[in-house]
């Protein structure tokens, strides 16, 4: 870890700076700069996440097949997959970053660092069965209520609203998926209540 070296450097420099006030201010700025530099070099994926990814290796005949599971692990933990995270996944899987990135961009669910998803992610189905029973209008209603556009996140970061294609709950149309749980037979009132109670 680089911090150990930086810290030594830091300690050594303590003696260079004097005890005058101006010197002290300069020294504190310097400390922040070193800390920031250290943090930028810190890996984005924690050891725990890396362990989870590595745990998948024996389940597949090669590491490339762990791409989706790795993306899921990171995405679930951080609510987005940043470019440095993609690099680190690629390194773990012995792939080029582009090979992880192009897979990730193909699918509908992964968020990037520019727009991570909020605490809870709510998907409104817009396919045929839900459309026939007011699913699109339900989504529009909730967007208005929450002051977001589809794909957007509420200001307090609590709810991200998305539209989805057929969620496979057509017997309960209109339906919506909250993270991993599907809720069916919704109307404006029940949808509002459901979403309001999400934390």
């Amino acid at each position, binding site marked *: 870890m680089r911090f150990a070296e930086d810290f030594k450097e830091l300690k050594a420099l303590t003696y260079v700076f004097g005890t005058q006030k101006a010197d002290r201010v300069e020294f504190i700025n310097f400390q922040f700069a070193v800390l920031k530099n250290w943090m930028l070099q810190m890996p984005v994926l924690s050891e725990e996440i890396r362990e989870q990814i590595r745990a998948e290796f024996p389940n597949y005949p090669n590491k490339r097949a762990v791409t989706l599971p790795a993306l899921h692990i990171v995405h679930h933990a951080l609510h987005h997959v940043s470019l440095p995270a993609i690099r680190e996944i690629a390194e773990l899987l012995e792939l080029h970053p582009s090979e992880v990135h192009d897979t990730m961009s193909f699918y509908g669910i992964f968020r990037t660092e520019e727009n991570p998803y909020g605490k809870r992610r709510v998907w409104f189905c817009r396919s045929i069965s839900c459309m*026939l029973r007011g699913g*699109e209008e339900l989504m529009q209603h909730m967007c208005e209520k929450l002051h977001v556009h589809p794909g957007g996140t509420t200001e307090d970061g609590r709810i991200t609203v998305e539209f989805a294609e057929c969620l496979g709950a057509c017997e309960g149309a209109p339906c919506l998926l909250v993270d991993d749980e599907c809720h069916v037979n919704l109307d404006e009132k029940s949808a509002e209540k459901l979403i309001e109670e999400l934390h």
Partner: protein
Amino acid sequence: MPEFEPVLLARIHKADSTSLEGYRADGGYGAYQKALGMAPADVTKMVVDSSLRGRGGAGFPCGLKWTFLPKDHPGPIYLAVNADESEPGTFNNRILMEQDPHQLIEGIAIACHAIKSEKAFLYIRYEYGRCYRVLAQAVQECYAAGLLGQNIQGTGINLDIQLHRGAGAYICGEETGLIESLEGKRAWPRIKPPFPAIEGLFRKPTIVNNVETLCCVTQILGRGVDWFKSMRVPPDPKNPRDPGSYGPKLYCISGHVNKPGCVELPMGVTARELIDVHGGGVWKGRKAKAVVPGGISMGFLSADELDTPLDFAGPGKVGCMGLGTAAIVVVDDQTSMVDVLFNCCRFFAHESCGQCTPCREGTTWMRKILERIRGGHGKLEDLDLLMEVAGSMGIIPGTTICGLSDGAAWPVKNAIAKFRPEFEEYIREGRRSITPAQELMATH
């Protein structure tokens, strides 16, 4: 007509339907025991004799597909379970997985014995989170009970089931798209040949089977070939290529009906019966204008085609693509077919993988034409253009790599052919029906 006694859905209302204990109490894994005592080739023969056809949408004979595997292959041979159910209107796989996971696991185990596979990948679409949890729990129970893993019950047979979550792409339901996705790549379907049975997952022989198909395998081994064949729509004597339709089928009913749901019936029930007898009739006292026969890829039945038997051969006789996933979606007579068709076109444009030219460009073109029509700026020539575009894409004419294009084209072909006056009137009157909700979601 006597009430049909469900078999595939027999256990789903039980309180303890998902546990191993409950499954075993009902005789579960007895079929697997029987299979383990048979030679793999004999298990395959049973499935071939049953004339079981795949329930994923293509209807290819399941046992026959198993025989395409190379003989005496050193392995590994893989089974990939297609639980990527994403066809709009379809939800029977979800019910099977959520409510009776062990029926599927038993089918997987039997299939793996027949095809000599020691590794099965269960590809579950991302949105089926509950299915994933239920199956993960069930698989864990099986490992603990020695039904999965190494040297199962001292037979020397090994089997591992690996759950794998998708990430939101309909094309992962196409068998080679699924394989590419499992391998960690973009889900671009592969050109065939080689077929997956020869070169599939990780370039090894692979069988891809649907969830419902594998549940049927469990019941075939458990109750016998004769039982399965007793429910049948025999092959058309005039068509030597028609293998007939056998066994029980799960039909999904949704849309403008009073009682949407999933019902298990012998093959060949009509849309009318599904709506009136099982679906509680069209809602709000209205009539059905159109019915999707098997997921939107199959097109539409018009109001006077509702007596078409919904077996593998029936819908094709009235111009639909086929039975597909046997999911009917009912459109009432107060709904515009232009709106319905737009919804279908928007779906396929969004889900096209983009690999081959006609699908990548054609699906979006059709969506944009529908958008313009629904914005009040359509022309009558647009209908001919739509028919021409739809006719030029698909594996049926041979112009694309996979069948998504055919699915994208069929609703357009059926809608315009069977409901042309409605489209013409809409265009002539310059009607506009784009909703604010749709404008919110525009460009996708």
